[in-house]
C-alpha cells in the first residue's frame, strides 16, 4: 500500500507535470531545430512566435465563445487552433519576405541572422503586448480534469491523490499526433525529402533542381504550426502571459541543443530530458522516501537537491555540460 502511495505521489507531482511540460518543450524545440537545420540560424524569435500564435488562437477562441461555439468537454481553443496556425503562417511568411529574404540573398553569416532574429523577437514581443496586453489571459474552458485528486482518492482508497488535467491529456495526445505527422511528412513526401536534402547539402540540393524558396516557405509554415500548437498547449495547461513565453526560450534552446541541433528526434528527447531534469532536481523527495524506505532510513529533511528557485539553472547547467563534452548533442546534430 505504501509502495502504491509512493508511486501515486511521484506520478502526481513529477511524472504527469513532467510529461506534459516535456511535450510542450519538445514541440517548441522541434521548431527551433527545423529552422536551424534548414535555414541555418538559431531563431531567437521562436518564443515570441509562440506567444504571437497563441495570441491569435486566444482572440479567435474569445470570438467563438462570444457567439456560443464550443467543443463540449474539450477547450474551445482546439477549434481555433487551425485558424491561429494559418494566421501565424502568414505572419512568418511576411516576416521572411520583408526581413530574412534580404539577408539570405546577400548570404550573410549565421551570426548576423541570429541578430536579425533578435530584432524580429523584439518587434513580435512588442506587438503581442500591444495587441493583447502584458497581463495574464485565461482562455481555457471545458472540463478541467480527466481525473481529479479527490475522485482518485475515493476510487482507490489510497492516501495520495492523482490529478490529471484535461489539458495535460490533450497536450500529450496532440504532441504524439503532431510528431507522427511531422516525421511522416519529412520521410515520406516529396516536399519533406527535398527539405531534408536542402538541409544536408544546400549546393547539391540546388543542383538537383530543388527550388530553395519553396523549401523555405514550407519550413516557415511547419514552424508556424509547431510554434502555435506548442504555445497554445502551454497556455491552456498553464497560463498565457507574453513574458513567460519569452522566458521559455532558454529551456527550448537547451532542449534543442542537448538533443542535437537539426535533429528532430533529438529535439523530442531533449525536451523530455530538460523537463524531467527541472522537475526531479527541484522535487522534495521526502514524501516518496517516507513511503518507500523503512522508518530508520526515512529522511527528516525535505530531501530536495535544489530549491525550486533554481529551476532555470538546471537547464543552464545541462546546456553547459553538453556543450563541453558532446557539442553535437545526444543525437549527432550539427555542432553549434
Amino acid at each position: 500500500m505504501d509502495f502504491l502511495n509512493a508511486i501515486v505521489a511521484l506520478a502526481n507531482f513529477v511524472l504527469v507535470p513532467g510529461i506534459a511540460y516535456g511535450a510542450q518543450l519538445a514541440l517548441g524545440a522541434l521548431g527551433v531545430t527545423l529552422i536551424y537545420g534548414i535555414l541555418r540560424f538559431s531563431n531567437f524569435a521562436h518564443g515570441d512566435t509562440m506567444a504571437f500564435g497563441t495570441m491569435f488562437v486566444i482572440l479567435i477562441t474569445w470570438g467563438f465563445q462570444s457567439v456560443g461555439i464550443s467543443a463540449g468537454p474539450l477547450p474551445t481553443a482546439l477549434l481555433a487552433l487551425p485558424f491561429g496556425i494559418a494566421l501565424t503562417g502568414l505572419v512568418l511568411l511576411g516576416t521572411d519576405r520583408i526581413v530574412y529574404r534580404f539577408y539570405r540573398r546577400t548570404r550573410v553569416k549565421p551570426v548576423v541572422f541570429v541578430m536579425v532574429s533578435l530584432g524580429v523577437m523584439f518587434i513580435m514581443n512588442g506587438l503581442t503586448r500591444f495587441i493583447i496586453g502584458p497581463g495574464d489571459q485565461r482562455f481555457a474552458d471545458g472540463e478541467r480534469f480527466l481525473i481529479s485528486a479527490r475522485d482518485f482518492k475515493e476510487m482507490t482508497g489510497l492516501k495520495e491523490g492523482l490529478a490529471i488535467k484535461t489539458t495535460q491529456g490533450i497536450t500529450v495526445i496532440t504532441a504524439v499526433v503532431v510528431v507522427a505527422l511531422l516525421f511522416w511528412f519529412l520521410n515520406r513526401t516529396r516536399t519533406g525529402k527535398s527539405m531534408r536534402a536542402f538541409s544536408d547539402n544546400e549546393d547539391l540540393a540546388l543542383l538537383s533542381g530543388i527550388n530553395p524558396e519553396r523549401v523555405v516557405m514550407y519550413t516557415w509554415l511547419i514552424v508556424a504550426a509547431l510554434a502555435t500548437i506548442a504555445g497554445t498547449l502551454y497556455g491552456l495547461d498553464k497560463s498565457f502571459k507574453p513574458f513567460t513565453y519569452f522566458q521559455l526560450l532558454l529551456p527550448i534552446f537547451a532542449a534543442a541543443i542537448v538533443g542535437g541541433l537539426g535533429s528532430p528526434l533529438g529535439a523530442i528527447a531533449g525536451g523530455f530530458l530538460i523537463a524531467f531534469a527541472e522537475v526531479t532536481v527541484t522535487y522534495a523527495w521526502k514524501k516518496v522516501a517516507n513511503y518507500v524506505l523503512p522508518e530508520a532510513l526515512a529522511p527528516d529533511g525535505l530531501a530536495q537537491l535544489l530549491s525550486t528557485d533554481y529551476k532555470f539553472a538546471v537547464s543552464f547547467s545541462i546546456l553547459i555540460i553538453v556543450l563541453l563534452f558532446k557539442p553535437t548533442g545526444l543525437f549527432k546534430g550539427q555542432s553549434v
Partner: protein
Amino acid sequence: MKKLLLASTATAMMAGGAFADGHATEVKLGIILGFTGPIESLAVHMGNAAELAMKEVTESGLLLDGAKVTGIRGDSTCIDAAAATAVAERQITSDGVKGIVGSGCSGVTAAILNNVALANGTVMISPSATSPGLSHNNNEDEGLFFRTAPSDARQGVVMTEVLMEADVKEVALTYTNNDYGKGLADAFQAAYEEAGGSVTINAAHEDGKADYSAEVGALASAGGDLLVVAGYVDQGGSGIVRAALDTGAFDRFHFPDGMISTKLVENFGSEIDGSSGQHPSPSDELSALFTELAKGDIDEPTSPFAPETYDAAALIMLAMQAAGSSEPADYKSKVMDVANAPGEKISAGELAKGLQILKDGGDIDYVGATDVELIGPGEAAGNYRVVGYEGGAEVTAGRK
C-alpha cells in the same frame, strides 16, 4: 560638533524667521507615494487622503497662527530606490518641505529614510510600509521615522494566534520573493515556532510565472495541516493556490493581507472553503465615520491604506502644533505624545478641535481614522480583521 553647532544655529535662525512671519505662513509637506508602479491603484486614494487632512487643517486656520498647509506630491515609484531618493532630495532641499507623508513601499521608504531624511533631519510618517526591517528599536532613525501601518512582525503574531486558536500545529509556508514576503514569512515563522507550531517548509516563489507545479510539489512533499501563502493575489499567490488545489496537495489555506481581496473569492469560490486569513483594518464604526468625512474628496475611502495616510498627515500637523513649530527637530518628539493617551480623544474630522486644545496647552490622544496607537519605535499597534471562507464567500471571523 562643528556641524551640530551650525545645524542648531541654522535651525534657530529659521525658527526665528517662522515666528517673525507669524500670520499667513505656509507649511509645505511632501506626499511621496507610489503614484506609478505596482500599487498605483492604491496611491491615488492615499494621496487624496493626505490632501484631505491638509485641507481640513488649513481651513480651520488654527495651525501655528493660521498657517496654510500645502501638500507637494512626489512619485516614489514603489520599486526604484534611486528615483524615490531623488524626489525626496528635491522636495527637502528645493521645495523646503517640513515633513514627509510616505513613502508607500518598504524598500523605497528605507532608501529615503537612510539617504535623505536622516541627513536632513526630516520627519517621515509612512502609511503603508510594513516591513519589520523598518522597526528602529535602537533609535537608528534618530526619532524621525513613524508609521501608521503596523509592522508585519505584528501580523506574524496575529497569524499565529489565529492558527493556534484553530488548533493548527503544522503548516507549510510559501512567500513571494521580495521584502514584503520574506519579512512577513520570517516574522510568522519565528512567532509560530515560539508558540509551539512547526513550519515544515519555508519556500519562496517568484511572481509572474506561468507554472507553479514544481513549487507546489516541494510544498506538498513537506506536508502540513494547511498552506500559508504570503504572496500577492494578482500574482504568484493565486498561481500557487491554483496548483495546490489542482494537484490535491492542499485544500485549506491561510492568507495574510496581500491575498485578501474580492479577487481571491472570484478566482477560487467555494474551493477554498475552510481557509482563513487576516488583514489590517480599522473597526466598522471608524471606517463608516471616515467614509462619511471623505465623501467627495476620496473616491474609495476604504481602499487599503487611505485612512492610514490621512492619519499620517494629521499626526505631522498636530505634532507641529504641540511643539509650536514646524521644524522637524522641534516637533519630532511630539508625534508620540499627540498619538497616544493621555488626552482628549480626537477622531478623523475633528482636527480643528485637536489643534485648538493643543493651542490652549491641553493634551490630545489622536484616534483618527484607524484608531492610531503608536507603540515601540513609533509604529501602529495594528487592528486586524480575521476572515474566514464559507460557501464561496469571505466572512468576518473576528478582530484582533
